């Protein structure tokens, strides 16, 4: 197959295309702003092509254990496993490479872009949102930078795309232009920019001045260059500097970002942006510090406890939220800490579990967000206490929500069970019994804050008058929901483009359960090499 494609269509080409296509889609959006159908169709095709390019990168690498060389990186790319695009500082280039974790992340992000774009078109039109062109153009730029983050061959390149991702998503958060949107986006940009420029950048420059390289190398680059108290300090600068990982106390941007239209919350604030954060966290753990260094010096132990605390605290805060999207946001804060925890455990299974959790949580959480959006489109309800009885009118939406929620909780036969399992194994390897307990308690908390909505939707009766604009919390969005007759008589299922995508991702949660072994084997070179 590869031979037939000839010399032009190499892995390198597809790698480049995965970045170029979303970028071109952004430009195309601006050019086609006068014809919405053409614009949205073009973006859909671009999303498909991006996904195809990433799949082609995967296919071009070969299969099984041949895919990655003995050092855990994809061999045969560029001169020495890297494609150097341009040298910004002497010895410091914008460069791309392929390794298992990044490829997995790119696959998820580009695959879910296809689904989310379809959903986004339905949502934006069904909801009469304005400025579609700006919205989809920024969205495409965000995907491009996500691809850049996923394939970055050094910390410098990663940082570059990380910041483009922050900036390109700012207009999306501020999209509605209302005072809440403005203040939310202010928090969003403020926390993300300040952490990255004021904490992360000094950490990167520190690494650069002590080691003379920023390349992601198996086994890490810091070993032998930093010692003693400097290791936990540098790790702290990275951990807090990566604001997108939403480690407390720098988590507030994530609930604040929930003012964005739901497709943004779904793809960006459940998948691309937050996963870029924890992905970076795993990357620095594996390729900058090296798991061995962390395990030997115990430098990440404090981070492990902090992550454990975040898991529980954010879950508890989530239970107090009545606004569905805010509850999901705090749930994301909690779930992201699972992945940080996986890195901080500094064991092989912890890292692989963290990597797998990127995939399983992405599918689960995007399902939940898309369902929240579908409920909003159909009923203009945002508060959980108003959603009684909706399940019977919207069976597909609530069914998908149930599956997504169960995957987050970690019940078989859903993907989430495996990543949680691996994390527990990782904790056991590290001999941290308390962490195992935290993971289990967290599952119970997940049940407590996710499943009541499903029960409320299917089993409670819609309380008549309360659905009418009486609810002051939802007053800003009461919309046409207020015009409906009491009860569920006027309610219908959300439009096809709004319920089908979450149904697809919910199915993905089930499929991932059976494919988890494959993904695990795929990720293993991360920890066995170097």
């Amino acid at each position, binding site marked *: 197959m590869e031979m037939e494609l000839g010399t032009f269509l190499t892995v390198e080409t597809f790698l480049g295309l995965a970045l170029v296509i979303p970028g071109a889609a952004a430009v195309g959006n601006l050019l086609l702003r006068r014809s919405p159908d053409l614009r949205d169709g073009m973006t859909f095709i671009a999303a498909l092509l991006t996904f195809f390019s990433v799949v082609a990168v995967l296919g071009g690498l070969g299969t099984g254990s041949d895919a990655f060389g003995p050092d855990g990186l994809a061999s045969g790319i560029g001169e020495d496993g890297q494609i150097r695009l341009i040298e910004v*500082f002497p010895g410091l280039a914008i460069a791309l490479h392929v390794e298992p974790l990044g490829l997995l992340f790119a696959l998820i992000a580009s695959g879910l872009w296809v689904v989310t774009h379809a959903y986004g078109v339905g949502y934006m039109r069904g909801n009469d949102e304005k400025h579609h062109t700006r919205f989809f153009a920024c969205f495409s730029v965000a995907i491009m930078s996500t691809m850049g983050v996923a394939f970055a061959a050094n910390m410098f390149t990663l940082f570059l795309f990380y910041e483009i991702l922050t900036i390109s998503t700012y207009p999306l958060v501020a999209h509605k232009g209302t005072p809440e949107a403005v203040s939310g986006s202010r928090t969003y*940009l403020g926390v993300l*920019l*300040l952490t990255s*420029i004021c904490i992360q950048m*000094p950490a990167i420059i520190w690494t650069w*001045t002590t080691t003379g390289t920023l390349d992601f190398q198996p086994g890490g680059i810091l070993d032998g260059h930093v010692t003693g108290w400097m290791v936990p300090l540098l790790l702290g600068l990275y951990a807090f500097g990566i604001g997108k990982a939403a480690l407390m106390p720098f988590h507030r941007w994530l609930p604040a970002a929930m003012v964005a239209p739901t497709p943004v919350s779904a793809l960006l604030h459940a998948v691309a942006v937050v996963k870029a954060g924890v992905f970076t966290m795993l990357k620095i753990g594996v390729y900058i510090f090296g798991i061995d260094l962390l395990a030997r010096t115990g430098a990440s132990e404090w981070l492990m406890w902090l992550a454990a605390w975040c898991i529980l605290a954010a879950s508890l805060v989530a239970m107090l939220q009545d606004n569905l999207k805010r509850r999901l946001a705090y749930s994301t804060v909690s779930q992201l800490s699972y992945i940080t925890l996986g890195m901080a455990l500094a064991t092989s299974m912890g890292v692989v579990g963290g990597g797998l959790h990127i995939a399983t949580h992405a599918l689960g959480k995007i399902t939940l967000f898309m369902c929240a959006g579908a409920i909003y489109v159909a009923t203009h309800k945002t508060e959980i206490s108003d959603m009684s009885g909706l399940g019977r009118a919207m069976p597909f939406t609530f069914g998908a929500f149930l599956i997504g929620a169960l995957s987050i909780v970690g019940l078989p036969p859903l993907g989430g069970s495996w990543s949680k399992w691996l994390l527990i194994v990782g904790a056991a390897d590290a001999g941290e019994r308390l962490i195992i307990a935290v993971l289990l308690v967290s599952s119970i908390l997940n049940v407590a804050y996710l499943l009541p909505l499903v029960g409320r939707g299917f089993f409670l009766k819609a309380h008549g008058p309360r659905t009418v604009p009486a609810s002051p919390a939802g007053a800003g969005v009461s919309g046409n929901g207020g015009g409906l007759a009491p009860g569920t008589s006027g309610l219908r299922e959300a439009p096809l483009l709004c319920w089908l995508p979450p149904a697809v991702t919910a199915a993905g949660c089930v499929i991932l359960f059976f494919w988890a072994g494959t993904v695990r084997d795929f990720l293993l070179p991360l920890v066995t090499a170097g």
Partner: protein
Amino acid sequence: MAAGAAEHVSRTLADHLPILVVLAPFVAAPVAVVIGNRNAARTLAVLATVISLVASWLLLRQVVGGGYISYPIGGWPPPIGIEYRIDAANAFVLLLISAIGTVFLPYAFRSLDHEIPWRNHTLVYCCYLLCLSGLLGIVATGDGFNVFVFLEISSLSTYILVSQGCYRDKRALTAAYDYLIMGTIGAVFFVIGLGMLYMMTGTLNMADLADRIAAQGPNRTLLAAFAFIVVGVSLKVAIFPLHMWLPYAYSHAPSAVTVFLSATATKASIYVLLRFLFSVFQPEFVVATLTPQAVLLPLAIAAMVVMSFVAVFQTDLKRMLAYSSLAHVGYLLLGVALMNVDGLSATIIHLFNHGITKALLFMGAGALVLRVGSTFYDDIAGLGRSMPVMSAAMVIGGLSLVGVPGTAGFVSKWLLVQASFERGWTFAAVLVVASTLLTVVNMWRVFEVLYIRSPNPGSQRQSQPLTSAGGPAGRIADTTGDAPLMMLVPIWILAIACIWFGIDTGLTLGSAQVAAESLLSGSLGMADGAI
């Protein structure tokens, strides 16, 4: 005689590039006045600036690999005659100044039409040409007294240019007067110091001065001369406690003039400071006087933090940008204070990067003046939506000012932090970062004003044409919609440059490193020898 003639014949135009850079605008200025026609003045300004640009580009290409070009004026060999000496450091600054001049002119046509009565235009372009040639002369020359002469040429014309803002706001006159007094004090200090040096060494040629100073060793007169020169130049640079003239001059001068000054005038002065610190007084001498740690570092930090902080409280965009310029002078000084190659490279590259960034932002401010007649936040609220193309460029400029990766500002900030780490001054790195934080606050406020705040109905939505201020106002285009094309093109050229030099640093970083190395080796790169 015969040998002289032969030498004369053998010189081609390429050999005369060092003087051509300065001479083109210098000759064009009086010609413009003699012709006395506004369009002729414009044409001459463009021609002269482009000639300077081409010449400085050719010069930079010759010296970017190291070494220097020595050009004796009138064939009188140094140290008797005046020598122009071009190496990587000044060729790079020459390129910045002439490039900014070239980009700025089309913008200035439109902006000056709006802000200055037509009858003054010929003289304004003449002043611009003199100012340009003065700035280029300061940078190109290798003669101490010649620096003073060109410093005065550029300063005198700058005072006039600043005062032209009085047609928009009468306070421009006091601002120009302030600047005149402070600038003159600075120049006097400078010439006193120079006089002392001449008294001690009997020479004014910088390279010769360097040799003789080194031969004499430090003494009290030398220290006094050093102090006079550093303080005099610092006034021109607007280093922290000597900065008061700058915000007034920048916020009240005509918008186009501010664009030009912000990107070039302080940059040329910083260059003079570098030259005297590193080439005339050697690095060892400077270190021995404790100037870097005891004087430059505290002032740099104060400028970075205090000026950024003061900028937060401004309600006028141009004034905020002026204070931010002062903060950036702090960055430049910090690089000097570090006294290592990376620090000095950071200073030199930041001269360039900040020059294009700030020119871009002031151009945006000028475009806003064209629309609403002021840059107060209350008046420009919501204009981002009615001027989308212009405002998008301003966002790029703002990001570059903050130092977001992928922009020019990031490159210099990265180098500066890296150099601080190398020197072991972690606190300096932390303060750079803290100052960045304040810059984020400042620029963010501007973005919110432009994009998110709704237009203020009470504000003066339409700029008053200048008919009442005397003379025909020229064609005032529609006062709604985006900035005119003549402004948008220069603005976007700079916006693209901000991104370009943030990714491809071959030219800027390459030149800066060669320049920093040659400066740190002392003696005007004498070790390398002439090309």
